[in-house]
């Protein structure tokens, strides 16, 4: 990834809700946003206004699907706070202000490269679309979806057929922490066997969406099992005010090779440099390093322009 590479721009549309239905613990929304639907690719997101003048900021939601013919975007909303609760309560005919598609999509490997698509909870939302793109070009794709318990799962026909990986991925593994559905344990407990099976076909590309501890574990497990062969592409979910690159709130410490060949760490915007990052580029030593900053990341001391003893920021 070059430092100057930024995401393609989105378009603003007042999107009418076409349908809204419960999917497990979540809400599946279909939004009429024809221009965004024409441009969108798997891994991108939509920034949605919640429709309450007291809650200014957009909620950024990973795209589950886009249909350029119908002119629709699909998302799966987890009602985690007051804003997403309002979005999850939208009904057909309601209008949601949207800016989409935002962010850089999942990179797609050479045809035939085997793939693993991993989702934690509603993080599984973009995976069927991604898996379809990969299998269409001849890749063998194995899905792993997991959650704390069966009621938080997404991406399996045990929850909902229309949003499931069943029938799209060549195989699907389901895990729950409490064993209430599928294999007891975490997605990364199932990952080594999947990686070893796929490695016979070539170095796999591993895609994951979900909470940061899960993404870290996917990266660590992949490196432990396959060494440096595989690639990991991790879609992060950072708190962001704008989604379009102007607020600078959603940054993460990311190490990249500059044009002079030197690897440098910068605080990069998840909305424009991500949300999909190369797992090897994320500075895991600084991400989640301060437990009192829930979901936060520190600035590594060696980052470009990091605070010095002389002057804090």
């Amino acid at each position, binding site marked *: 990834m070059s430092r100057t590479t930024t995401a393609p721009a989105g378009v603003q549309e007042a999107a009418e809700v076409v349908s809204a239905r419960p999917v497990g613990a979540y809400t599946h929304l279909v939004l009429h946003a024809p221009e965004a639907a024409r441009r969108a690719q798997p891994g991108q997101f939509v920034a949605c206004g919640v429709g309450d*003048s007291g809650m200014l900021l957009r909620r950024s939601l990973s795209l589950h699907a886009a249909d350029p013919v119908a002119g629709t975007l699909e998302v799966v909303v987890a009602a985690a706070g007051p804003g997403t609760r309002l979005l999850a309560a939208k009904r057909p005919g309601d209008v949601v202000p949207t800016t989409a598609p935002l962010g850089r999509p999942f990179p797609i490997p050479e045809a035939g490269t085997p793939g693993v698509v991993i989702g934690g909870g509603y993080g599984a939302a973009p995976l069927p679309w991604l898996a379809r793109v990969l299998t269409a070009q001849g890749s063998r794709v194995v899905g792993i979806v997991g959650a704390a318990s069966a009621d938080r799962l997404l991406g399996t026909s045990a929850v909902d057929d229309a949003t499931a990986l069943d029938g799209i991925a060549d195989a699907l593994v389901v895990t729950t922490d409490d064993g209430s559905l599928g294999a007891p344990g975490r997605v990364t407990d199932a990952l080594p066997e999947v990686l070893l099976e796929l490695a016979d076909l070539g170095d796999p590309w591993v895609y994951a969406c979900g909470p940061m501890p899960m993404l870290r574990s996917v990266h660590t497990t992949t490196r432990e099992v396959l060494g440096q062969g595989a690639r990991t592409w991790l879609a992060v979910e950072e708190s962001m005010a704008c989604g379009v690159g102007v607020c600078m709130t959603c940054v993460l410490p990311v190490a990249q090779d500059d044009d002079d060949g030197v690897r440098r760490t910068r605080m990069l915007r998840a909305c424009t440099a991500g949300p999909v990052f190369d797992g090897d580029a994320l500075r895991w030593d600084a991400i989640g390093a301060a437990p009192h900053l829930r979901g936060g990341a520190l600035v590594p001391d060696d980052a*470009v322009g990091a605070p010095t003893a002389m002057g804090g920021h």
Partner: protein
Amino acid sequence: MESATIKDVVHAPAATAVDLSTSIGSFHLPAPTMTASGCAAAGAELAPYLDLAALGAVVTKSVLRDPRSGRATPRMAETPSGMLNSIGLQGPGIDSFLEHDLPVLAEAGARVVVSIAGGDADEFGELAGRLAALGPESPVGAIEVNISCPNVANRGLVFACDTGASRAVLDAVSSAVSSAAAATGRPALPVLAKLSPDVTDLVAVARACTDGGATGLTAINTTLGMVIDPVTLRPQLAGVTGGTSGPAIRPIAVRCIWQLTAAKRAGVLPDVPIVGAGGVASGADALQLIAVGACAVQVGTATFADPSAPARVARELEAELARRGVARLADVVGIAHEPGRGITRSTDL
């Protein structure tokens, strides 16, 4: 109700376009809305959503001498009708800004106000000198001085809270700008001092800035706030405190601009232009700031929800003025201070 009476205000037929042009010293703006510093990055990010050249100006994120990583995250917390931010002046530094960011704005045809920040007066002066020395083809029309950043020499207290520190920064900036003007023979760049509302005597700080050579004022910057994480019972922001922005602080902006304008009218402050900022999300919001004395308005936090907001607010402002039969924006600047000049009929508003 009686029919509308606006004494001394030039009436326009409803269909006529309103003259929205305004000026900040020698910097002429065809439209009265700008982005706000820190709410538009370097400006180019908004190009897909609005015509940068049609804005009054693009106000850049504060530029410093050196690259700066900014703070740890979380950097943001949503608050009722507002938000806190604690970014820490992340940016690539003046060299990268001049090489990469400013040419993009020039190419787009934008007029640019460059916000500068520094840890001491010398850094401000150096940055102002670099900008003032740019050639006549430069899109930079003014400098905005972000005095709400930590003063390294004074325990990190912001310059804007202290009249002496504010004056020292403006002295450094204005002398650099004057030197460049003398060397090039071109008019000196207008210098806006961006004021913090977190002071006991706003007019005294504003006076220190104009005494130091500020040729205009921007009011207001964010106001310091804090949110506690409900789970950890610790500050939610990595930087502990953050700047509060959004409609929640609009009444504070209106009050500050009112006080500054009243001081100008009383002869306590020189008659310098005031650029309003603070919670503007609509044309009606902008009109409040203009009525108390702002000749131009910055649209900041609203841009996060609607990246076209700075352009939309200008269109809405034009409609607000046209609906009142006002032909020129300049006719309503400060009108709230003039009993009898206001619009007395409200039935169709």
